């Protein structure tokens, strides 16, 4: 007979190996977060280069003031869902502001970004519909499709021709529709979707296009609406989802639609109906951040410049980068062990990036993933490049040091 946790034995072995190498990369504990770009562990200051704080607004004076006022005026929590406890005026105000930003008639806000896609996808796809999702879709898109009774088919990553082939192969969907789900910028590699081409293919087959702009809202487009706006096709997109926990410097999410009938899904989306609504502080901070996004051309310019600077710097050091310059720059490493050793070395040398390993990565890659912020300065990016350069020059020392640690842990 097996015990309840026996199934996790292979995973435990992998975690134990990581812990012999150094710290738990998936469980980093900061003693303090000092600013959008600095944290503290013990008495060491850490440069944050892996927090998806793209516009650096978490410490923005106006966003903080809005959150503080919201707590004073409306309390610390909502204590329940909007279905049970009602909608606050601030929820509606934020929905209207986002709908107006996208030029769409409907927008619904949710409690987290993850729940946004769970809710919206499960609300949109019924048992006769077919979901077509990009092969590199985020876990919340996969999990959202699992909440439906719709059939789900993957197409090759960022490949509209492959989507076309699979839609043709599917043929007419009797009594249902095709819902095509892509992302604007993909979180692991930082690569960008050809939204205009996906729109063409999807609509030619009579389907609906759903874009998750979690990592691209605030970052791309003249007013920060994301990749669809950047490519000049925002008005044609059927559904756009996003999160508050990146550019909007809060916690929550949204889905906007050009279809006014989207409103009916408030009555069926379980991750909307059966969870507590976003707190006043989160909603009010995000509301102010939306205005910052709209007028944040200067933030986007700095972010773009920092991305180009970092990409060029790492390229000059001959690192294998996964995509063209974007706020997410992923450095491909030979394997999980080396990536973990290097991640620890970077932390010990004051730079926090993300260690990303299979199965959470495309192509079973092991990555040191950097996400940049508009709050990063040119000097900050030079510190990151310098750290990667020293890391590369210290490979032999890093390996032998880690071997000693592993032996000591035996």
């Amino acid at each position, binding site marked *: 007979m097996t015990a309840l946790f026996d199934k996790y034995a292979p995973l435990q072995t992998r975690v134990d190996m990581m812990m012999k190498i150094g710290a738990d990369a998936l469980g980093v504990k900061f003693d303090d977060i000092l600013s959008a770009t600095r944290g503290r562990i013990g008495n060491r200051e850490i440069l944050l280069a892996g927090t998806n704080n793209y516009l650096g607004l978490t410490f923005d004076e106006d966003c903080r003031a809005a959150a503080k006022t919201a707590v004073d005026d409306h309390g610390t929590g909502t204590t329940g869902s909007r279905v049970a406890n009602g909608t606050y005026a601030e929820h509606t105000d934020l929905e209207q502001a986002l709908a107006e930003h996208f030029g769409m008639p409907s927008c619904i806000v949710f409690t987290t970004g993850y729940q946004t896609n769970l809710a919206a996808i499960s609300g949109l796809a019924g048992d006769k519909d077919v979901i077509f999702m990009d092969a590199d879709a985020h876990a919340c898109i996969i999990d959202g499709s699992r909440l439906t009774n719709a*059939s*789900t088919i993957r197409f090759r990553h960022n490949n509209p021709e492959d989507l076309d082939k699979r839609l043709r*192969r599917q043929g007419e969907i009797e009594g249902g529709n095709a819902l095509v789900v892509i992302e604007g910028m993909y979180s692991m590699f930082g690569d960008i979707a050809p939204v205009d081409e996906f729109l063409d293919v999807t609509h030619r087959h009579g389907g609906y296009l759903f874009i998750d702009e979690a990592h691209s809202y605030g970052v791309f487009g003249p007013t920060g609406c994301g990749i669809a706006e950047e490519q000049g096709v925002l008005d044609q997109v059927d559904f756009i989802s996003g999160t508050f926990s990146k550019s909007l410097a809060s916690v929550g999410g949204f889905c906007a639609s050009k279809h006014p009938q989207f409103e009916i899904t408030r009555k069926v989306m379980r991750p909307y109906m059966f969870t507590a609504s976003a707190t006043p502080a989160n909603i009010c901070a995000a509301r102010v951040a939306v205005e910052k996004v709209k007028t944040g051309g200067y933030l986007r310019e700095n972010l773009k410049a920092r991305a180009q600077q970092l990409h060029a710097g790492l390229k000059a050091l001959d690192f294998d980068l996964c995509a063209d310059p974007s706020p997410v720059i992923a450095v491909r490493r030979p394997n999980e062990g080396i990536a973990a050793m290097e991640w620890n070395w970077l932390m010990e040398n004051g730079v926090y990036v993300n260690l990303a390993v299979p199965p959470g990565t495309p192509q*079973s890659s092991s990555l040191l993933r950097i996400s940049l912020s508009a709050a990063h300065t040119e000097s900050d990016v030079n510190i990151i490049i310098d750290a990667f350069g020293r890391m590369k020059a210290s490979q032999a020392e890093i390996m032998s040091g880690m071997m000693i640690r592993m032996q000591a842990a035996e």
Partner: protein
Amino acid sequence: MTAPTESEIYDKICELLKPYNPKGLPIERSSGIMSDLEVDSVAVFDFIMELEDHYDISIPMEMVSDIKTVGELSLAAKGLMS
């Protein structure tokens, strides 16, 4: 074109699995694709796409989730072609 036999599909699956099985673990009908051959959950879907394209079929994700062994996949693919 005549539909492939289940045995032919099985042989094709074994061939397509090779790049996903760098340790060269023995493949049998009863081999668990993830449990025995150690193909991770994302790579399984990449391998399935290759099989889909070879036979011009769609194997929905919900069906893949229920398939554990190489033999089950072979039978499922055959079912989609008949």
